[in-house]
């Protein structure tokens, strides 16, 4: 039961720390936040590897194999799509010189 308590401690503390950090994300980045956190729960791949790696019956092998496929889809797709999105968020500076010299905003 002690182990359970240790896990529960991690869970509660993470929930508080996570909420603090996430509350500071500006609404302009809410879509990347969703897709980025989506990629992070892809860490279930580690769990999927462990269950397939310890499988002793055919049933476990099939289920574990499926789990690894799905988890890989989640983790790879999640990070790639988030990167693609964040790549697009550019500030004023790196724009083409022609437009930036014309548009002097205060």
């Amino acid at each position, binding site marked *: 039961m002690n182990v359970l308590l240790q896990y529960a401690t991690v869970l509660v503390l993470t929930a508080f720390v996570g909420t603090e950090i*996430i509350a500071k994300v*500006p609404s302009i980045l809410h879509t990347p936040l*969703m897709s980025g956190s989506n*990629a*992070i729960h892809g*860490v279930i791949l580690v*769990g999927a590897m462990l269950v397939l790696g310890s499988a002793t019956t055919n049933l476990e092998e099939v289920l574990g194999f499926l789990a690894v496929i799905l988890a890989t889809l989640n983790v790879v797709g999640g990070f790639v799509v988030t990167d693609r999105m*964040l790549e697009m968020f550019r500030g004023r500076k790196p724009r083409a010189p022609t437009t930036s010299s014309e*548009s002097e905003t205060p």
Partner: protein
Amino acid sequence: MSRETLIDLLYLFSATTFLVALKGLGSPKHARKGNLIAAFGMLVAIVATFFKYVDGHALHHVGLILLAMFIGAIIAVPTARFVEMTAMPQLVAIFNGVGGGAASLVSITEFVHIKSTSPATYVTLEVLLGVLIGTVSFSGSAIAFAKLQELMTGRPVTYPGQQVINALVGLVALGLIVTILVSGSTALLWVLLALAFVLGVAFVLPIGGADVPVLISLLNSFTGLAVAASGFTLGSNLLIIAGTLVGASGILLTRLMSKAMGRSLSNVLFSAFGSVVTAGGAEGAEARSVRSGTPEDIAVLLSFASKVVLIPGYGLAVSQAQQVLRELAELLEAKGVQVFYAIHPVAGRMPGHMNVLLAEANVPYEDLIEMDEANSELQTADVAMVVGANDTVNPAATNDPKSPIYGMPIIHADLAENVIFLKRSMRPGFAGIDNELLYNPKTILVFGDAKDTLTKTVAAVKAS
């Protein structure tokens, strides 16, 4: 240092990178780097796992694991790279769903693996929660995907006694959990799996298209919690930390989104919003006069303004007019006009979707302003131009207590000196409600496809 300690340290490292990534999302400047750091942390965790010992032996089936990873990756990469940004919500829904499915499968497999050792009751409970939440997320995301992809109607699907039936299914699932806890039966686990699948579908069916963004962030949170539950079962701090972070972020976003619509979460989830077209619209659009104009009219109006606030909605993305809108904004800025893009929190189809769509069109993020700031800028603006938005600027949300969107915070376009409304037709928006703003004497309506109208306006501004 033992092998296990080293692996645990690497896991700690990767959990830290996840926090760094979320912190990086605090500003668009550091966001991309943060995401790459998290991806690296994930890679470290995956590689470390290959060296882990389970049940006292090195990982079996390494070939199978690599094969499954290969299959997953070759499907994921091209999908993620080439899907249109407008289809982003569907894609996030799918990646979320498969994550939930994976979490559910991990829990089941572990249960099958350990059941001969008659695990403690709390271990079984963790497994069952993982299966229930993960599967609901899986099938719920699948239906959300179908709605967003328009494979099925975006309207709420309702039938008599729906809420009672759903509540019963939920209760039976809970009863089943208790029964399995007492009996430890694997056969019943499959029943629970099927029931959870049905529950996910039944839960999402009555939720209307306009509310799906809130739903996706809730399902994201579900998957996070399912991953955390698997973490308990497998005894992995890494899974617990990552899952909880996602769970917290999903719940936070869900609450923000429902607040932005002025409704409670339970209202969003259970009211089948948008299923009935309100009788309020019956006074008839044709009975009332509107002022319509041409692209040339608005070109003049815009060119001679000193401050313009653009209010984009999902309709902008549907007509693929983001680029032209940016072109128009740059032209105006070159003429010395101050231009802002006012972004309503629920514009688009997921939280912050409109920002991504505009970023894709190279709009600098400094020009995007949030609702509160927009409303203070609008007080001194000469022109507010609504492009493809409707409900988010509908004054009924503030004035008409009978309106279904009453209480939703809106962008007050009518505060500006002039309002330009680009509209395809007089048809009401997503929520099916007539918009008073269209009949405001300040408002000039320009009918037609947004991209078409904007292209003509750009030409007219250039010519002037």
